């Protein structure tokens, strides 16, 4: 039995609580707001501060429920205890259980909006249909109002068109079902929303493998290739290949 501190994005809340409840290890979970991803450059200092604040409370390691997250975790430093992080780009691969499966889905339909139970439950009304991934369309209407005030209607329309044109190439909504509870009404409303916007809608079964391995300590022996362990005195760096991460001293 080990004592771990898990610092994770709130999009993993239910899976992490569920795994922690039956884990052989003792795990404290600290959730961070998902909006950290909106500005990856601000994510690292916030995570580092949290790690530094919590790490000297008798834990053997800090387990990060994060991936590369738009480079938001790059540069994190392990000071006194190791930090463990799954080798994934983001929450989509984590929820699907492997980067390989994400690649297959991406290959099939690159323009996919991804959704999950926790993500939906932790959204407010203004961004209910914002999806997992790199861009949130939070506050779109507010933005239009601001453009209208500053630049007039013609330019405001042009800006919305230009800044939103990538969305025309998105064609699928995919709900990742982690199998923990029957998806609530959100699944139906997402299906309807997808219909309305002309997207296809798919339910994909999620896989707890990576999150379970993180909490249960599989990274130590059983499954080291899917995780990177940053030893004390080392920093997390990017490799730009399938390994995603490496450690550098310092």
């Amino acid at each position: 039995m080990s004592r771990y501190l898990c610092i994770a994005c709130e999009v993993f809340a239910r899976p992490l609580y569920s795994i922690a409840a039956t884990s052989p290890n003792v795990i404290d979970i600290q959730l961070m707001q998902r909006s950290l991803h909106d500005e990856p450059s601000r994510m690292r200092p916030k995570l580092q501060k949290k790690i530094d604040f919590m790490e000297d409370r008798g834990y053997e390691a800090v387990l990060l429920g994060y991936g590369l997250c738009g480079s938001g975790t790059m540069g994190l430093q392990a000071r006194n205890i190791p930090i463990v992080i799954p080798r994934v780009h983001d929450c989509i691969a984590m929820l699907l259980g492997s980067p390989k499966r994400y690649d297959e889905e991406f290959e099939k339909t690159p323009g996919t909006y991804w959704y999950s139970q926790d993500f939906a439950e932790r959204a407010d009304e203004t961004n209910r249909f914002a999806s997992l991934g790199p861009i949130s369309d939070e506050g779109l209407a507010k933005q239009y109002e601001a453009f209208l005030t500053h630049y007039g209607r013609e330019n405001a329309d042009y800006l919305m068109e230009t800044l939103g044109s990538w969305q025309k190439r998105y064609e699928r909504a995919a709900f990742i079902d982690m199998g923990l509870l029957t998806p609530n009404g959100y699944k139906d409303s997402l299906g309807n929303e997808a219909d309305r916007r002309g997207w296809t809608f798919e339910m994909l079964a999620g896989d707890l493998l990576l999150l379970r391995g993180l909490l249960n300590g599989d990274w130590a022996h059983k499954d080291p290739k899917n995780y990177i362990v940053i030893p004390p005195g080392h920093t997390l760096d990017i490799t730009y290949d399938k390994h995603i991460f490496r450690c550098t001293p310092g």
Partner: protein
Amino acid sequence: MEKIVKEIYNAVVNGNASTVKILVQEALDGGVDLESLLNEGMIAPMKEVGELFESGEYFVPEMLISARAMQSGMILLRPVLFSKDIKPLGKVVIGTVKGDLHDIGKNLVSMMLEGAGFEMIDLGTDVAPEKFLEAIQQHKPDIVGISALLTTTMSNMEKTLRFFEENNVRDQVKVMLGGAPVTQNFADSIGADGYAPDANQAALLARQLVGAV
């Protein structure tokens, strides 16, 4: 500078597309010197827009609006320049890397480069290495610009460069990279010729790459 060129300059900086369009047509009808119209009426104001962006006075929306105003003039000016054999600063093929559908930044860069005097060939989004190659062979550009928003698609930038090498065109073009997760380190590590963190820097870099600075 002629008065009308100065007015065009101001209308571009202020992002007034319809005014630019009317004034450029007037200038063309009135026989205004074409090089002056291009350099002082289109390129110079975009340079100022770039400087306003650098100094934090302009943000992406202002840049887009000015670029659009410039483009509304270029649509009229370009065929005339072409007919008089006035050459652009260079030719640039641009696109988002294979797998990446996100093109806000790429579009802005494309407009800023056009505003810096380049002829742009925009291949759009999700551009396969083969498509870049075809464009290089067809258009003989000086520069190829490739962007990525997702960290998952960044590795395709390297694949694209290797593909250029395998097909013996890598030394015919300068390659510049951009996009939110891209860094100078990454660009260096895969052997690109340059990286720019934003659209204004991209325009400056492109000028450097063709030796126009």
